[in-house]
């Protein structure tokens, strides 16, 4: 098969399978006093890492690789979360008791959430991406708050009380498959002719147009794809926490993803993976510091901005991210 063509790809797959097995064993086999080493809380933390990685990588497609400035990514997450919860919980009342019915519905529901979020992305992106400059930031910010407000006043979505009783479909397997598949798909896109066009738009929109690229179309497409993945993440998020509230998806949430992205490195997929991983796990590792934890958070951000303005990863990528490129055919001829 194509994707197994290099040993490096094979090694990467093996590492992920191994990681899954280790985590699965640690979280199910009782080791210490009848309790597994990793309790439910740690599994949930890991799930949040996965969700935040997909959110940040999808934001990086727009902000890092295409050079636009979207600051309302949580709005699309909300659209996905509420759409999928509406399908599984309000309309179909599926539960985890019968996984043969539940999981297909769940998968279809989160994909539906992604599609609706992509539609919202098109409505937001199509008019504002035609313009150059900061318009996208203003429009995405307003769209984020608009979506949140609409949810607040919609009774079927729970209104200001939030929507509860969502079945917990998101387990370790779902998180692994969702995170890896999403990141691989976006990685593939970045390493393609379309991905090169995105970077061209970032570097010089005028030159990109003069090179025959329909820059408006490319920007809108990337924005829609990005909203799609944010919608999927929202669906997975809703079925992890089992309760969603409009305020979960406020501008502050969008800001968090921006921080993850720019600390990790906006122009690198690896950075968009490292950033959310650090910021989701760091507060837990620093649990002993109690309220001083909240000081560490901005401190990391400030230090990054001073010493590594391009983020932790800069322009570098982990080798497992990269696609095996051109055989040096004739490059040395």
């Amino acid at each position, binding site marked *: 098969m194509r994707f197994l063509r290099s040993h490096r790809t094979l090694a990467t797959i093996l590492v992920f399978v191994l990681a899954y097995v280790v985590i699965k064993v640690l979280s199910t086999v009782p080791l210490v006093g009848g309790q597994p080493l990793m309790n439910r809380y740690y599994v949930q933390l890991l799930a949040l890492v996965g969700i935040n990685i997909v959110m940040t990588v999808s934001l990086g497609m727009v902000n890092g690789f295409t050079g636009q400035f979207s600051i309302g990514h949580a709005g699309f997450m909300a659209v996905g979360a509420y759409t999928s919860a509406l399908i599984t919980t309000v309309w179909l009342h599926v539960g985890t008791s019968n996984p043969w019915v539940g999981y297909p519905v769940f998968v279809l529901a989160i994909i539906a959430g992604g599609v609706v979020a992509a539609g919202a992305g098109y409505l937001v992106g199509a008019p504002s991406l035609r313009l150059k400059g900061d318009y996208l930031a203003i429009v995405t910010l307003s769209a984020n708050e608009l979506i949140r407000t609409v949810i607040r006043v919609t009774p079927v979505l729970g209104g200001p009380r939030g929507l509860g009783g969502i079945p917990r479909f998101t387990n370790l397997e779902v998180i692994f498959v969702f995170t890896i598949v999403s990141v691989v798909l976006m990685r593939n896109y970045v390493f*393609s002719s379309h991905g090169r066009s995105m970077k061209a738009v970032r570097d010089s929109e005028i030159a990109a*147009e003069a090179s025959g*690229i329909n820059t408006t179309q490319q920007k809108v497409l990337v924005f829609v794809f990005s909203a799609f993945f944010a919608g999927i993440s929202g669906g997975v998020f809703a079925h992890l926490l089992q309760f969603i509230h409009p305020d979960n998806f406020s501008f502050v949430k969008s800001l968090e993803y921006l921080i993850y992205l720019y600390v990790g490195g906006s122009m690198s997929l690896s950075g968009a993976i490292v950033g959310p991983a650090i910021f989701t796990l760091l507060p837990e590792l620093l649990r002993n510091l109690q309220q001083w934890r909240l000081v560490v958070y901005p401190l990391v951000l400030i230090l990054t901005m001073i010493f590594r303005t391009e983020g932790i990863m800069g322009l570098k990528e982990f080798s497992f991210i990269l696609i095996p490129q051109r055989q040096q055919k004739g490059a040395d001829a």
Partner: protein
Amino acid sequence: MALLEIEHLTEFFGGLRAVSDFNIRLEHGEIVGLIGPNGAGKTTVFNVITGVYRPTQGTIVFDGQSIVGKKTHQITQLGIARTFQTIRLFSQSSVIDNIKIAYHFRMPYGNMDSFLHTRKYWEGERMVDDYAIDLLRIFHLDQQADNVSGSLPYGAQRRLEIARALATKPKLLILDEPAAGMNPAEADELMTMIRWLRDQFDLTILLIEHQMRVVMGVCERIKVMDFGETICEGVPEYVRNDPRVCEAYLGKGA
């Protein structure tokens, strides 16, 4: 039939008439120069041809069809490629990616192939790799193919910009001050290259240039502009000896 035919082109910026009643006919295979003092409207003409600005008045017919009102990328896809007065490379992309980007609109695979890396993707990538490296070799840039293009020396960046324009497979190449910042030896090399490119790639070339040596050396026909008006047109010897041209450049004699 002329490859490019512009008639009565006028461009206003608010109340300022940047170009007035500009006419040009480019026959297939010609090398034509557009000269004039700063602010004469040369770059504006280029920007109108490439669709950056819409002409206030006038017609532009390229290869038998009107291109007025078309977007820049559509005009490029029809076969007009350009370089810029100040170099505009995709500076954070590698040298070879700069070429591949210009090939994007010919790429035979779509968005879904990009997401899934299908067989079509791999075929397309292999093809564009070969195409790009062959093109880079012509411009002696193949050794630097994987370097970041922003790190290239100035002369190499100029060459890469021309190579990128050629990667769109144009019929008409328009060069905005290709010899800017070049020393006489580099300019000589450029002149040889421009003529060679015309023959090799079957091009028609329109260029703006301030270095008279280059303009006189390479162009078969020259058009002189001043304050948006065409003041003189003809073969280099004729233009060189025209008093109006001297006046435009040097001012009126006492």
